[in-house]
């Protein structure tokens, strides 16, 4: 029972809409003139701060071919429009609104959809009579960069100054400390030890490799100077 009621309600609403759409027609010597209707909803902060926003807002149809003005309650009408396809834009200096494409067929049926310039056949329907809401405040300006202490600190010039300063001031102090001295020496010894080991390994490896290449690839010997150099090394060692 309830379902039925809801359904009938929907039907009634759609009927009302249809009637609403039809009243816009003005029959006149054969060629019909229609009226595009809609309502604009500005952002609430704006509405309260600027009570006279209606007179600064305009509605352009096809870039000013037809013009609509906004009434006190935010509604607008565009008179004297023939059947066809129109782009309805709401213009305001400080706020951006999304344009809507309104199509009126020869029978006087209205259809409103989103403007899509790339996929022109794509239909994303929006309600008619139009309800146009402000997308937001239009951003005309770039934001100036604020001065931060981190900007100065991470400036390459400052970094170049600070790092050597640290090296000069802090390192000698560390050197004077006996414990760190000991530590450093130890590290140095360790690195020395490892260094020799690594160099040995590398030279051994290269020696082995060069021997292999000597036998395997005689071609490379003529062309690769580096290879020649490496080959000499084991000879010297021997």
């Amino acid at each position, binding site marked *: 029972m309830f379902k039925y009621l809801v359904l009938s309600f929907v039907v009634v609403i759609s009927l009302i809409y249809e009637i609403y759409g039809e009243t816009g027609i003005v029959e006149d010597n054969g060629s019909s003139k229609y009226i595009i209707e809609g309502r604009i909803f500005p952002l609430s902060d704006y509405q309260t701060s600027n009570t006279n926003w209606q007179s600064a807002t305009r509605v352009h149809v096809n870039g000013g071919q037809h013009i609509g003005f906004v009434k006190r309650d935010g509604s607008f009408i565009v008179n004297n429009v023939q059947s066809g396809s129109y782009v309805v834009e709401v213009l305001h200096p400080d706020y951006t609104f999304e344009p809507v494409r309104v199509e009126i067929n020869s029978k006087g049926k209205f259809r409103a959809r989103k403007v899509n310039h*790339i996929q022109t056949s794509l239909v994303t329907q929006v309600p008619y009579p139009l309800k146009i809401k402000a997308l937001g405040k239009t951003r*005309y300006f770039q934001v100036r960069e604020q*001065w931060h202490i981190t900007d100065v600190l991470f400036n390459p010039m400052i970094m170049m100054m600070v790092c050597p300063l640290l090296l000069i001031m802090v390192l000698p102090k560390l050197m004077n400390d006996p414990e760190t001295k000991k530590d450093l020496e130890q590290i140095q010894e360790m690195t020395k030890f490892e260094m020799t080991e690594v160099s040995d390994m590398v030279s051994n490896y290269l020696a082995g490799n060069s021997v292999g290449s000597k036998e395997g690839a005689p071609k490379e010997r003529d062309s690769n100077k580096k290879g020649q150099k490496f080959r000499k090394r084991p000879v010297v060692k021997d």
Partner: protein
Amino acid sequence: MANFRSIYKIQIFLTILVHVTLALYEDQVGKFDWKLSFVGKVKFVSLEAKRIIVATEENVLASLNLKNGDIHWRQVLEDPKDYKLELLHVNKEIVTVSGKENTWFVRTWDLNTGTILTEWFINTERTVPSLFTIVNEKLLHIVPIRGLQVEITSYTLANAENTNGSILKGISRKIPAAWLNKDSDCVPAKSYIVCAVSSKLYYVDLLKENSMFVSQSLADLVDNSAGKVLLIEYKQDVPSVLLLKNNIAKLGTFNGENIQIKPFNLMPNAISISNNGKDLIYQLEANDNKNKLIKVKAKDPQTGLDSFSLDLEYPLGLGAPIILGGQSKGSVTDLLLSTTDDALLLVRLPEGKILWTREEALSSVVASEFFELPISELDASIEHEFDSANDILEMFSHRISTQIKQFYNLVFGNNLLQNSGLVRDEFGLHKIIVVATRAGKLFALDTLTGSIVWSYRLPNVQSFIGIDNEEKMLLLVQRTAQYAPLPAHCVLLAQDTITGNGILFEFDPITGYSKAGIQRLNYKIVQATLLPYQDKNFLKPMLVLSQDEQAHVYPTQAVSLIKDHFSTMFLYVADTENSRLSGYTLKYSTEDSLQVTPSWNVDLAPSKLIAVSAKPANEHVHSQGKVLYDRSVFYKYVNPNLLAVATMTSDPIYNSVLSVYLIDGVTGLIIYGTSHKKARGPIHLVHSENWLVYTFFNERFRRNEVVALELYEGHWQNNNIAFSSFALSQLPQVQSQAYILPSIPQTMAVTLTERGITNKFLIIALTTGAIIEIPWMFLQPRFTNMPCGPEESCIPYMPEIPLHSEATINYNQTLSGIHGIEVAPARLESTSHVLIHGLDIFYTRVAPSKTFDVLKEDFDHVLIVLVLTGLIVATLATKKLAARKALKQAWK
């Protein structure tokens, strides 16, 4: 992988975008830009206590402040080309009727805010001129139909509130009037309609039912000398009308079926102003006093005796005034005057002081040009140091004296040597803009403040009608201000209102001084151009082609200068009526007689010629080619003689076809041609360097599209020293690409810089009132089979051109009725001046590659000083410390 690649692409695009888009900072607002707002030539006016409601020829309704003339609010109605305001009535709320042919919009507006209250429209079957009047809160629409009747439809305005847009049914009534003919002249007078036909006056009172026209012989009413009687509306409480004959007006008042003619004479511009129930007639009369040419007279409406007369302090340079309206309050009377040069001024009586003047002529600019200012005396004296190169002693004394002056200036400020503020600055940012207006008045505007420096009124001057009915005058710069002490020299070309013959006006653009005044030529001007040669006074000769194909050179003695160049002089003429382009040569001329010989013509009929665009004459092309990804050079085809032409053809299948041609102006060779089916105007062409950009409306996809064409010679340059139109070995290679423009352009221009090194920006005025800058890089056609990325300074192709709100150079200063854009280079390479004119005038500067040649304005001077002092202090301190340490070490 593909995903990654697309991300990579987007990233590249974003990095470029960040780099490319430039926007203003909020604190730059109004720093170098300014806006002047206008309403247009005032048609109807109503004074309402502290404000003036005006309705203008530009189809604008506005409220002005009575005290200073500032615009309180302004509503711009439909395009003034088609729609006209027919009625303005103010009574608690404003009622306007505006429309065309057989459609009129009736709108009511709120007096305080300019918000619309109601709107509905009237649609009639017949397209005959009709009248509107409001009587007793009823709008009467009066349609006189020739030889038949007068149809009157009355609408009740009070009911209009509830109708919400749909048509209001009016009550129609027909009154037979078989005597109406094409010469009949009807005006409303309160509830009466009064018509004058040949020798009879007909009038009818509409309030009475079944009333019929009453006729009266005009000879009985006014003197029976020869001449036609004109009727002028006269607004007062008693229905009355002014009968004008031989420039003498008589006041006739209606009473029932009788008309009473007052026994005194009036001026045609007489108006009635009521003060506390007592009416007075105010009119302007010519005065014998040479210093005060205009006087105001107030007359008693019963006796016609003068009750008040005053000589006005009427400023020189303004045209003849008429009274539009007025109001009286106590002893003070305000009169609103409009002049023949479209100015609006308010006169306060009894002092006769002019409270303010609005130069509404500036709302219709038809030509504009930027002028560099002359250098200061001091700079001039420095430049003239080597003038007397023989005398060393004199040169030495000259140098010493200038350097003393320089030093003096440095110490005491340089205000002593400047006679006026109009002196060139270092970067050429301070310029003078000279604009010619439709009303025939010249103005010079200061780029720094937007104030009017001088104005000059040219009587009986009108603009040429160019392609696509565009009104145009020509401003040609014969000599710039850089040749001190010779003043700058500019020429305005226009046509006479009566004969249509050419008008030549030579003047100094800095001061507005003209030695010769207006010269009325005895031929019609078809084409005019400046020649690129200078005579001994650094004056560039001007070549003017008359309608009968005769060439004229100004100044006339310059013929001897150009006689060696006749073989390289060519002209072109675009004939819109016959859709024909023709080229002429001066090859067969001699010094005694200039021979203009037709050399080529391109017949584009039956297509309609809708746009022709030549390149800016003062353009420099810095780079001769484009470096490709393989480091080879692709040379540009830079032909200074190239014309871009657009035509429209109606087609049975494709509706309308747009064709664009590139034609060499010297040889008439069509270098390139393309066409777009199902295209509609308006077409805008922008032609620069080696490229052309045009926009049109694509009817198939119902969107605006923009096409970029670029011409290249190829990997090999034909002649790298000079370009010749005749030395053509092969046609240039044309690259083209089309994009979607997600808005509707109203007019377009391209930035110009001193040397052409800076990137190019397109400046597009949109119908929304925004001026958008788009980098040329966005539109530049991409090469096929070539990589496109930041390394090639190339942005991957996007079908839709992004129009960011940050790219709006006029931020929230929305401009109305934009008509044209004028661009001029500054002396600073990075910057160009931009002037946008229309109902508003907006000036700003743009820097397409940012201001790379000057220190940024947000450069932190304090920080650098702090860092430097910090460093110095640090060095000194460490020096001391080091010395102390060395001393300590030595003691160890």
